[in-house]
């Protein structure tokens, strides 16, 4: 029994990580109509910079390293969005996909060259410490991941709903031409949205790093699963991405009990395909949202 509760909490923690990444991908999809296959790379890059370069390499305090990495990757994302992504937007969707895959390849191999192939360990805030609630022990890092993710999601949704900036971002995502006509500097906001998406990805990476090793391919793995989560929840829909991510995390964690840990990664994709066969637009999706 305790084992199941632990597994569920752990799974939800992973779900949180997927949710942060998936949210970013949905933002980019809604605002730019681009499926960003390179998103996982921003995760990897940011995590490496924060932990390996700044914290472990240059002995910066962790919180400062994290903030610096977030800023850096955010700026990088904004830069990429303006230069690369804007240009490929106009092309048919297949071309866009290949382009982002190419970008992903470039980024992954650059990271490989810079940081080397060896995986690193990262203790995070809790190390291996467990937090005990009665007789059930939870991995501290799991709880942190869950907690911070929920906090961020809550803050983000409030920002989106209630602040001017949030409303503008939503307006631009919905119909950027009209927003432009209303005097919104559209490109700046698109870059801003992209930056936010990248920052979310880096946070996700830092949250998951203590639980799994930091490796060059951590981003691709999580990124692809975030895609699967998005697809399950319904493409292009924000609640869909979040629900899909948590659902995926849960089913992955519980499914591993059944299928064994070697096939853990496969669960996400098999699920995605199954869901699509039954509901081609995912649980919350609809044809309009998937429109390219």
């Amino acid at each position, binding site marked *: 029994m305790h084992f199941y509760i632990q597994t569920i909490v752990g799974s939800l923690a992973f779900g949180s990580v997927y949710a942060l990444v998936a949210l970013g991908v949905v933002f980019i*999809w809604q605002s730019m109509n681009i*499926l960003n296959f390179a998103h996982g790379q921003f995760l990897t890059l940011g995590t490496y910079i924060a932990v390996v370069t700044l914290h472990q390499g240059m002995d910066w305090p962790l919180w400062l390293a994290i903030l610096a990495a977030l800023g850096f990757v955010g700026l990088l994302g904004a830069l990429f969005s303006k230069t*690369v992504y804007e*240009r*490929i937007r106009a*092309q*048919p*969707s*297949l*071309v866009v*996909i*290949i*382009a982002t*895959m*190419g*970008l*992903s*390849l*470039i980024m*992954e*191999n*650059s990271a*490989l*060259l810079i940081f080397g192939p060896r995986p690193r360990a990262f203790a995070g805030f809790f190390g291996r410490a467990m937090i005990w609630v009665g007789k059930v022990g939870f991995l501290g890092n799991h709880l942190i991941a869950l907690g911070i993710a929920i906090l961020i999601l809550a803050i983000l949704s409030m920002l989106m709903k209630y602040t001017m900036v949030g409303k503008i971002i939503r307006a631009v995502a919905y119909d950027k031409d009209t927003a432009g006509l209303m005097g919104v500097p559209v490109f700046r906001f698109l870059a801003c949205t992209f930056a936010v998406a990248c920052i979310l990805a880096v946070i996700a990476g830092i949250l998951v790093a203590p639980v799994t090793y930091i490796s060059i391919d951590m981003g691709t793995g999580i990124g*692809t699963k975030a*895609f*699967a989560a998005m*697809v399950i929840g319904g*493409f292009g829909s924000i609640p869909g991405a979040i629900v899909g991510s948590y659902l995926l995390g849960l089913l992955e964690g519980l499914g591993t009990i059944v299928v064994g840990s*070697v*096939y853990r*990664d*496969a669960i*996400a*994709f*098999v699920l*995605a*395909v199954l869901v*699509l*066969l039954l509901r*081609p*637009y995912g649980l919350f999706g609809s044809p309009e949202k*998937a429109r*390219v």
Partner: protein
Amino acid sequence: MMKMRRRIISDANTKRLRFYNKLKIAIICSVLILACLLPPLLVETIYYLRVIVAIWINAIVALGLNFCVGVCGQISLGQAAFVGTSAYVLAILVTKQGAPWILAILVSLISVVFLGLAVGLVSTRLRGPYLAIVTLAFNLVFVIVLTNELNITGGPFGIRVNPPQVLGLTIDVKLMYFLAFGCLIALYQLGRVVYFSKIGRGFRATRDDELAARVMGINTVMTKTQAFMISAIYAGIAGVLQTLTYRFIAPTSFTVIQSFRYLAMVVIGGMGYLPGSIVGAAIVTVVPELFRGLAGFWDIILGSTILAILLFFPKGAGFFPEYFKSLIARSKVEERWTGEIDISDI
């Protein structure tokens, strides 16, 4: 006006010009083919021959993928999984089951075709990004299964195959060279036949405007399924050739990165441009061999090349023939459209 029009279309001049054009192309092709047949006879270093055989095999995969992606406009990120399916089915049947080669080859090809059919049917229900993720997922699951089912697939260590004996000769690289090249030529010709047939027109219409295609009588459900099946069968043949040539297969040859490389071949060669796929395959196969020591760099260069092409040069290698054609006057026919419809002799 109609009579003059008809005369222009069947003008003797044009006929002669077209004949000479065809002759020129035929001569160039023959020379190229002969040139390609020379290396096994002249070169002794097995390494170089293997690289060229790799070009032929990759070209076959790229051709198939080009049909699906370039000619029909369907997203397929899992081509390597098709190649891997036939390669593994063949290897498993031959080594673990001791099946005769001919039978094993047949079974592996049939299994790939069915797989292509399945993926194709799934593709008809899904649009753009969904299809991309499903084909991606398919490839990922494929590799995971391959890596983990040690008993059946040999896991990450792969499978070693003993080549068959044909007429007392062990199949070696030189023989495979001719076989692979022959398959490439045959499949390329087949590709041309399909491209210019009603099937090919159906594919291209589905790509350029699916709605119009459906309304004009094309069963796009069938065209999409057929596109995937064609890419699967080409990949299947390539997989068989691969197993025969290298006598060793491992999951690393069929990952998503490899699928991306196949896509790169299609993009560099020009999407929808059949000869270009061969060029693209040559480039993507050979250049990493030139930079053997700098593996990481090569992938960066590959990715950057793709990006550059997509941003600035969407037609890839297909750009050149069209450019040259527009430079050289093709016919002396004058276009005279007076802006009238003449209904005098319908």
